[in-house]
């Protein structure tokens, strides 16, 4: 009954639950939006799991192969790009007006998405978009760190919600760069799924672990004055 509860979906469910508990009354619309984003991600993961199961069953039964779940993740990519960019805008705006930088980043991603779409349609993984998006988010993360360490004021970063959110994002997308770059190589050998899924499991646990902790910081540990900044 609960066979859809894998390591990744479990980590996502944990993140979603923490977000609902911690952020449902948050003053910031963007932070409250994490609940919706995590809910969409979790539903996509479950549907993705079901689609993958159908695909494997068809493979075993040697019947007509369905399209698998890649198209679903390609759609999720749009939500990821927009929402994570928005959160980066929110955490960096304390230091600098990053509006135009984020808009340019999203435009670049839109171009790559269109190229991926025109080259191989929606049923193949949009590797170029994923790679560029990961690089962009890693740059945003480093920018945040740069502003944080150059800030005159001292923060207790153990309790700083944006820091933990950015840290989780950095780990996930830095790891995803390696994973995406090697996806092409992995696709030529049969161990592709085992290896990528193991890597994604680890990345997901780190991502949702850090994000959940950042939600806890946001709710209970970060000073109100720091949130209002």
């Amino acid at each position, binding site marked *: 009954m609960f066979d859809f509860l894998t390591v990744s979906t479990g980590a996502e469910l944990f993140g979603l639950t923490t977000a609902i508990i911690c952020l449902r009354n948050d003053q910031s619309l963007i932070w409250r939006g994490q609940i919706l984003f995590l809910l969409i991600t979790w539903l996509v993961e479950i549907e993705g799991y079901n689609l993958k199961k159908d695909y494997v069953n068809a493979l075993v039964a040697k019947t007509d192969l369905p399209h698998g779940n890649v198209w679903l993740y390609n759609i999720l990519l749009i939500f990821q790009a927009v929402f994570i960019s928005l959160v980066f805008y929110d955490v960096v705006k304390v230091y600098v007006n990053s509006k135009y930088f984020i808009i340019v980043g999203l435009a670049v991603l839109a171009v790559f998405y269109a190229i991926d779409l025109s080259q191989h349609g929606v049923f193949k993984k949009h590797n170029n978009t994923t790679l560029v998006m990961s690089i962009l988010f890693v740059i945003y993360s480093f920018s945040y760190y740069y502003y944080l360490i150059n800030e005159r004021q001292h923060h207790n970063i153990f309790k700083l919600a944006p820091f933990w959110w950015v840290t989780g994002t950095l*780990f996930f997308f830095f*790891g995803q760069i390696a994973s995406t770059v090697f996806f092409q190589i*992995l696709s030529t050998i049969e161990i592709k799924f085992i290896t990528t899924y193991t890597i994604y499991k680890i990345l997901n646990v780190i991502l949702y672990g850090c994000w959940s902790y950042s939600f806890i910081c946001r709710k209970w540990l970060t000073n109100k004055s720091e949130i209002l900044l």
Partner: protein
Amino acid sequence: MVNEQVRNLVIITTAIFLIAPAFVVVYIFVYNNRKKRHILEKQQMQLSFESELAKTQLEVQEQTMQTIGAELHDNIGQLLSLTSLTLSSVELNNKAKARQKIDDSIDLTLRSIKEMRLLGHLLQGDQLVAVGLVEAIRQLVSWMERSGRFEIVYTAGDEIAANRNADKDLIIFRITQEIFNNIIKHAAATEITIDLDYAGGLLELRIADNGVGFVADEAPLVGHGMGIQNIRKRAGIIGGEAVISSDKGAGTQIIVSIPYP
């Protein structure tokens, strides 16, 4: 076999890609802790500076009050007593003598007024923010000159007035006050030269006398006023230094250099 190698390669690369951000995060933690220590040290220094400033303010006021008290007792008090005595001895039937005594009394009263005015200026020296360092030292010099014991040459650059730092002014004024005290009490000098110059972001106060001088090792560190060490410490608090050169019978020269404003 090849598959196994490729898989290992991918896993190792991904692991490296995970370790790299871990190093970045650790670096940020270390840097943040260092920043915290630095901020705490700065706050501590600011607190000690403010406490030293308050102490200096009190010392300046105390010194000014002591001087005024002594002046009132030794000078103005005497003048007014003499005025009272002269007026009480006026014989109204001897008009010529009475005229003379009244004129003397008027003269004594005018001298008292003049002395009071000078004391007023000295009191103004305490209000450094209002009169500025150059003027405050000038009041001190005027007061010193009045004793008739010293020949004083005081020169001050014009640029100082344009650049002001009230906190530093107060400490430099206190240092000057104490150097004057030391000259009066210990130097037995007859000539004093005071130069106040400002150039290249550095304020330099040079005070030299032709007194008895002292051997550096024998100079009192504490006790007499601020002491030599204290003059150096006060200069150090505002980022400057005090160089004291002296020898037995060769007078003393003190150069206080302060980054300014």
